[in-house]
Every structure is written in structure tokens, then in C-alpha cells.
């Protein structure tokens, strides 16, 4: 049998099928609210809708939490599957075992951002007595639901596409000089350009956050997230591995490196999430939210922790890699 049905994969599917069922309920409610919600009406229908908003919100909130847990579990599963798939030494190899892998990973991350933004709108909405954003937040959820469905389809395609007998290439080749994949190419930007870019972007981020130029700050946060990951692969990672040729975003999640990857990714996620979130909400519901401090705090923590490795290496060995 070539399909990869390990207990981990089965569990991922069970949770996703359950989430799909519940999100579909939320979708139906969201659609009704988007069509008929009217706080000025005293009809029974309005009253029922008001009650249903709580169910939909509860489901969406729960989905976000479960999605975060299951994302961590997914990454963990990828790492574990690297024992089964020939050639794979970490999650990179497992991801590239199917063409859908990289898209699945991107969609999984994207959806956590999207669900999180929903929660931000919800929080502002529930604080106001006239529920000004109820319609728009559920309209926005209609859109998130499709992203969720795409993720689910990608996941099925991905796991059924992996052939455990086929040799895959892992981080050693995916991120090396002759790589042709889009992600691989991004990491080919020479460090002499990308590392200064990373730091100057960070300074710009702080500047725009302090100036509260929200939209620009949001866009910069997005770019910062991408540059952070590529420089982590091409530059900072090599100092964590203490090996100039080891370019990998996954191996830092392993116990050999004290799971430091989980810390780094969490800092980066929280920082950029709030940065992008503020801009996103300003555009969507036109209200300013003051999460700049959280964004700056976590982004700074990321930059500091990631810079620690090369500096520490230099102080100990007196040379750069």
C-alpha cells in the first residue's frame, strides 16, 4: 500500500473532518447573518440570528485554537514522516515529497492568520452595543471558509500523493545553489543584500509603528515575515546549525537544536500577526486598533533572538561562517 496512513495522518484527518463539519455550520449561519441581520428588528428571526452569532463565533474561535494546535502537530508529523520517506531527513523532504506540499504549508499558515484576524474583528465588534461589525465579520468568514476548504483539499491531495517508495530530495538540495523552486530561489539572494535588508526593514517597522502609519506598517510586516524566513534559511540558520552549508527551516524544530525553532516561529508569528492585523482591520472595518506595542515587542524579540546565534558564534570562535 502506498498511501501514507500513519496514526498521525489519520488523526490530522479526523480533526479536519470534524472542523469541516463545524465550520460548515458556521458558514451557513454566517451566510444568514450576512443576508438578514438587522439589530433594529424585533422579529423572531432576528432574535434567533442573534443567538446563532454566538454559536458561529464559538466555532470560529475554537477552530482557530485547534488549528494552531493541529498546525504544530502537522509540522511534528512532517518531521516524523521523514523517517518513513526515503531521502527525507526533516520536514523539508516530506514537504517536497508531493507538489502540493509547499502550497499546503502556505495555506495552513495563511489560514491561521485569517482566522486570527477574524478574532480581532470579533473582539472589537463585541465591545460595542450596536455590534457594528457583525455583518462584515461574517461576510469575511464566508471568504475564510473557502480558504479552509482549499486547505482541506490540498491536505487530502498531499497525503494521497506521497509515495513512500519514492526517493525525495531534502533540505540539502532544495535550498542549494542550483535550486529552481520559487522558495529555493528566494533564499539565493546573497546574504550581503538580504541580511542588511532584514535589519533595515526591522528599523522601518519600528519607525512606521511609532508613527502609526498603519497601512505601510502592515505591508512591511508582511514583507518582513517573508524576509525573516528566507534569511533564517540562508543566514541565521547556518549559525544555529553551526554549519555553513545547512540551509533548513525545519531542522531547528528538532530536539538536536533544543526545539529553538518553535520559539523563533512563535515570536515571528505573533509580531507580524498583529502588525498585519492592524492594517487589515483598518482597511476592512476602518477602525484603528492599538496593537502596535505587541507587534513591536514580538518582532524585536525575534530579531534579538535570531541575531544572538551569529554574534554568539563570532564571540566564541572569532570568525564568521
Amino acid at each position, binding site marked *: 500500500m502506498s498511501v501514507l496512513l500513519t496514526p498521525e495522518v489519520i488523526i490530522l484527518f479526523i480533526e479536519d473532518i470534524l472542523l469541516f463539519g463545524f465550520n460548515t455550520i458556521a458558514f451557513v449561519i454566517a451566510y444568514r447573518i450576512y443576508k438578514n441581520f438587522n*439589530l*433594529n428588528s*424585533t422579529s*423572531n428571526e432576528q*432574535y434567533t440570528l*442573534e443567538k446563532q452569532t454566538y454559536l458561529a463565533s464559538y466555532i470560529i474561535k475554537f477552530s482557530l485554537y485547534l488549528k494552531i494546535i493541529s498546525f504544530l502537530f502537522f509540522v511534528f508529523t512532517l518531521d516524523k514522516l521523514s523517517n518513513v520517506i526515503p531521502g527525507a531527513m526533516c520536514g523539508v523532504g516530506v514537504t517536497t515529497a508531493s507538489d502540493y506540499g509547499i502550497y499546503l504549508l502556505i495555506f495552513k499558515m495563511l489560514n491561521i492568520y485569517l482566522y486570527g484576524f477574524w478574532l480581532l474583528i470579533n473582539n472589537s465588534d463585541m465591545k460595542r*452595543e450596536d*455590534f457594528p461589525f457583525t455583518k462584515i465579520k461574517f461576510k469575511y468568514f464566508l471568504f475564510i471558509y473557502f480558504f479552509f476548504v482549499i486547505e482541506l483539499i490540498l491536505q487530502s491531495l498531499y497525503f494521497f500523493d506521497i509515495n513512500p517508495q519514492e526517493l525525495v530530495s531534502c533540505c540539502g538540495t532544495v535550498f542549494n545553489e542550483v535550486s529552481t523552486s520559487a522558495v529555493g530561489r528566494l533564499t539565493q539572494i546573497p546574504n550581503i543584500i538580504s541580511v542588511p535588508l532584514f535589519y533595515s526593514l526591522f528599523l522601518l517597522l519600528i519607525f512606521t509603528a511609532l508613527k502609526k502609519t498603519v497601512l505601510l506598517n502592515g505591508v512591511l510586516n508582511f514583507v518582513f515575515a517573508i524576509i525573516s524566513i528566507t534569511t533564517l534559511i540562508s543566514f541565521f540558520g547556518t549559525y544555529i546549525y553551526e554549519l555553513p552549508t545547512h540551509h533548513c527551516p525545519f531542522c531547528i524544530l528538532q530536539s538536536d537544536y533544543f526545539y529553538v525553532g518553535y520559539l523563533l516561529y512563535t515570536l515571528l508569528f505573533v509580531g507580524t500577526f498583529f502588525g498585519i492585523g492592524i492594517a487589515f482591520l483598518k482597511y476592512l472595518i476602518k477602525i484603528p486598533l492599538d496593537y502596535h506595542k505587541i507587534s513591536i515587542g514580538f518582532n524585536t524579540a525575534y530579531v534579538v533572538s535570531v541575531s544572538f546565534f551569529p554574534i554568539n558564534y563570532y564571540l566564541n570562535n572569532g570568525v564568521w561562517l
Partner: protein
Amino acid sequence: MIELKSVDKIYSHGEHEEIGVLKNISFSVKENEFSLLTGPSGSGKSTILSIVGGLSKPTNGEVIIDNKSIAKLPDKFSALLRREKIGFIFQKFNLINNLSAIDNITIPLIPTKISKSEIEQRAEKIMTELSIFNKRDVLVEKLSGGEQQRVAIARALVNEPKIILADEPTANLDKKLSLDFIQIIKQLKDAGKTILLASHDPLFTDLDCINNIIKIHLGEIQ
């Protein structure tokens, strides 16, 4: 403090059947006034109280509590209003039987940010005033009717409300306990509370502390 303007309440069952419970109710209760709602059972007194307390919404009309319109306020915020401004005393006491007296009294403040010790201090102070402090940890189902009502009153007061709503408070009490209750309600008025009480008990009608009497019959003010 409390103002109702042409309030209607219609319950609809299914699509075509509608039952009118209240029709064109308008009255107001000023701050520190004690108003009595009277009328036979089923006349709509309880429905008025539940609308004033934001437990249910009027079909038409305007309800203003402490300068705030609540007729179309979502449940989330009418609950908040109750928590902050209203103390409710129910006919059947509505206590949770297998919890102790103190645990029943502190319930309204559990979802707030007030610390546990402060809530308990408040509750104990009220219990002392109502002379039920010695029943602090007794399960309410083991208390007598009069004690149960005092626990219910204490619960209504623990959030330090401006407004007290009471629904047939003496219906389950004998004469002596009813008179005790009247003493308590007088004290509350003296303490500056605004009181709206629904009862068909004749004991209330002659009280001198009552500012106005609103007679309800078949859902309308007479």
C-alpha cells in the same frame, strides 16, 4: 430612573398565531421612588418587570433605564446592565439549591473582575445586615422560607444596584415574614434605592413609603 413609553409585547407562536400580553404601557419611576405594580395574576406584571430588567425585549416601544435605552439592546449588554445596576428578587427565590448561602449570594459577581475575597467580604457584610451570617455555609435547600428569601435579597444587593425589581416577593411567605420583608424594603428605600415591586398582596397597598401605584389589567394600565 425607569421609563417605559408605549411598550407592547406580543408573543408569536408560529407564523400566524400571536398573543398580545402588554399593550401601550407607559409609566416612569424616578430615582429613589418606590412604585407598586398591582393587578390580578396573569395581568402582565411579571412581563413588565422582565422587560424593565432586560430579560425580555418589548415588541414595540421604548424602555429607558438610567438614561439608557434598552429596548433593542443585545442580550450581552442587557446582562451587563443587570449586573451593574439592577437587583432582582424573584417570586420563587430562584436560588441554586445545592449551593451554600454564600455561594448563592456571590453568583452575580463571579464573571466580574472583582477579586474573590472582596466579593465574599461584600456578601458577608450584607448577610450580617440581614442577620443570616450564621447560615453562611449552609446549603440553601436546608434553610427555612424566610431565610431563603433573605439569601435571595442578599444576592440582589451584592452588586450594589441602584434599582431593585421584585416580583411577588411575599407570595411564598406567611404574614409575619411578609411584614419582615416590608421592613427590609423600607430600609432599602431609605438607603436610596429605586424600587419597582409587582404584587397583588394587599399588604403593600397601604404602605406610606410607596410613591405611586400602577394598576395593570389584561396587559393595560387602568
